């Protein structure tokens, strides 16, 4: 090939890759624009403090759904965080060969399992025995989704703690468990918090596993053994309903949800800023 032709191909391909990067980012911008354009006018104080109104009555809000999402995320964290963090410590510290490998592999498998399948799992182990949809079942499903994420990030962050620190502590005769709880984990804190925030951002927006576990509720929740509303569920229900009013509410709900999720991702970024920079 002639030199000029090669140069032209080179420049063209360079521009094509830049173009594809732009095309990829475009939908994000479009979605954000539409969310603000369609949703912003409906987000007001009522939206955060009122219950949904029946069809035909304008106004109302999604207070119950916002609280519901917070409760579900809280429940999931109660179960998922301790298991994930301790399990992550095990993966990083264990001298064993086989078991950590198996657990690591299974965590990655679980990470790739579609969330709707995890919903079925939660349905069969929590909803069926209790004979009712409940907040508990929803929280369990979300915990299963968050577990592998927390586990793997904790492992990675614990591995980053310099061995010298650990050795210094051990050399002073401090028992291993205290070295881990008081020295290793606090040192890895920022990274672990990032993992936690990432996993929370992920489960806060999950809808599919809640459809037949938490089920949704148009009123305030009545305890953990009753169905509970969740923001993503409410958005879904309103989006597929045939009422314009509800569509506006759905856009507003989506805007609120996105702001919640982006801010927790942002916290994750700020916490790690400057540290572990090579590791994202």
């Amino acid at each position: 090939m002639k030199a000029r032709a090669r140069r032209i191909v080179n420049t063209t391909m360079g521009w094509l890759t830049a173009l594809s990067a732009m095309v990829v980012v475009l939908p994000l911008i479009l979605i954000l624009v539409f969310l603000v354009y369609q949703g912003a006018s409906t987000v007001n104080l009522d939206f955060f403090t009122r219950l949904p109104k029946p069809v035909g009555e304008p106004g109302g809000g999604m207070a119950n759904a916002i609280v519901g999402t917070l409760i579900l995320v809280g429940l999931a964290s109660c179960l998922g965080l301790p298991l994930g963090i301790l399990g992550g410590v095990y993966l990083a510290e264990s001298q064993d060969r086989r078991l950590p490998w198996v657990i690591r592999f299974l965590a990655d498998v679980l990470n790739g399992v579609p969330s709707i399948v995890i919903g079925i799992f939660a349905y069969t182990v929590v909803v069926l025995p209790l004979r009712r949809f409940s907040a508990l079942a929803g929280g369990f499903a979300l915990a299963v989704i968050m577990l592998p994420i927390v586990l793997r990030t904790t492992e990675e962050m614990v591995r980053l703690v310099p061995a010298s620190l650990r050795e210094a502590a051990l050399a002073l005769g401090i028992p291993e468990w205290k070295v881990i709880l008081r020295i290793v984990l606090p040192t890895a804190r920022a990274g672990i918090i990032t993992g936690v925030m990432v996993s929370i951002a992920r489960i806060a927006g999950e809808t599919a596993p809640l459809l037949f576990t938490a089920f949704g509720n148009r009123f305030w929740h009545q305890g953990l053994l009753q169905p509970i509303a969740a923001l993503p569920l409410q958005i879904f229900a309103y989006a597929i309903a045939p009422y314009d009013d509800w569509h506006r509410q759905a856009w507003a709900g989506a805007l609120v949800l996105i702001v919640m999720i982006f801010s927790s991702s942002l916290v994750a970024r700020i916490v790690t800023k400057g540290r572990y920079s090579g590791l994202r």
Partner: protein
Amino acid sequence: MVREGGAAEGLSLLHLARSTRKTGRWGDRLFRLLIRAAALALLGIVLGLVIVMIRAALPSIRAFGWSFLFTSKWDPVAEHFGALPLIYGTIVSAVLALLIAVPLGIGAAVYLSEVAPSWIRPPISFLVELLAAVPSVVYGLWGVFVLAPWLRTQVQPALGSTLGFLPLFQGPPYGVGMLAAGIILAIMVVPFIIAVSREVLLAVPNAQREAALALGATRWETTRLAVLRYARSGLTGAVLLGLGRALGETMAVTMVIGNRPEISASLFAPGYTMASMIANEFAEATSDLYLSALIEVGLLLFVVTVVVNALARLLVWSVGGTVKAVRE
């Protein structure tokens, strides 16, 4: 990172050592048991998931056998269930998504790792991460109210009048349907493909690039011959990870695919996927056999995604890239 302030640190360590000399041994044993139990909990969950689902799907497996996979009548009233249209819809929508997402995703990854000036990389990576953080239901909402109407009024009539001789682009333009599902899935899958491909490309040793450049190759030739070829299997892994995502994606697809269990050659026609069938009908399944059939669909989805993901990981590992969580 090591904390600073050596002397104070040392003193507090000594203090810690003194205060726990006695509790050391059994404390260690207990702690080891505890973290091991936490790790085993994950094993328990995965095993439990498999066992519970197989058991719950058993009535349906017994009743229909292999015909479940190869017949296309889904009739809850007569209690006859065949999942072929769902399998078809799942595969077609995922393949369509990959056809759009793979060239764009790999192109963008090449841009991020080979072409772009270094100041532009962080903001674009940041936007791609945000794209991955948008929840499925929000994509669905946008798909229903923005994408589908646009397809119905602009794109589908145009495609129909120019390429309408192909069976792919025939039939009335509904907006919602296979095409909408494919596009939404492509948007959702692309951030994963970019993230993993970029890792893989960054794992390509610089010696590869330098050797090609030293021989007088242009940047594109270097990328094509020395980088992409070297990273081939890792990139395949990235694509498979995207496929795994696309197969199991639920909410957005449910909202835009039209939800009709039929097989149609046209991309304009509504379809159904395994995941969206479960999402729509699970809470309403009236009989045990119906529920069991839906769980069998879920089991099928589970098996397929596990196989695809395991393959993907092996491929990515083989080039030394790491599949780290971009919110995977």
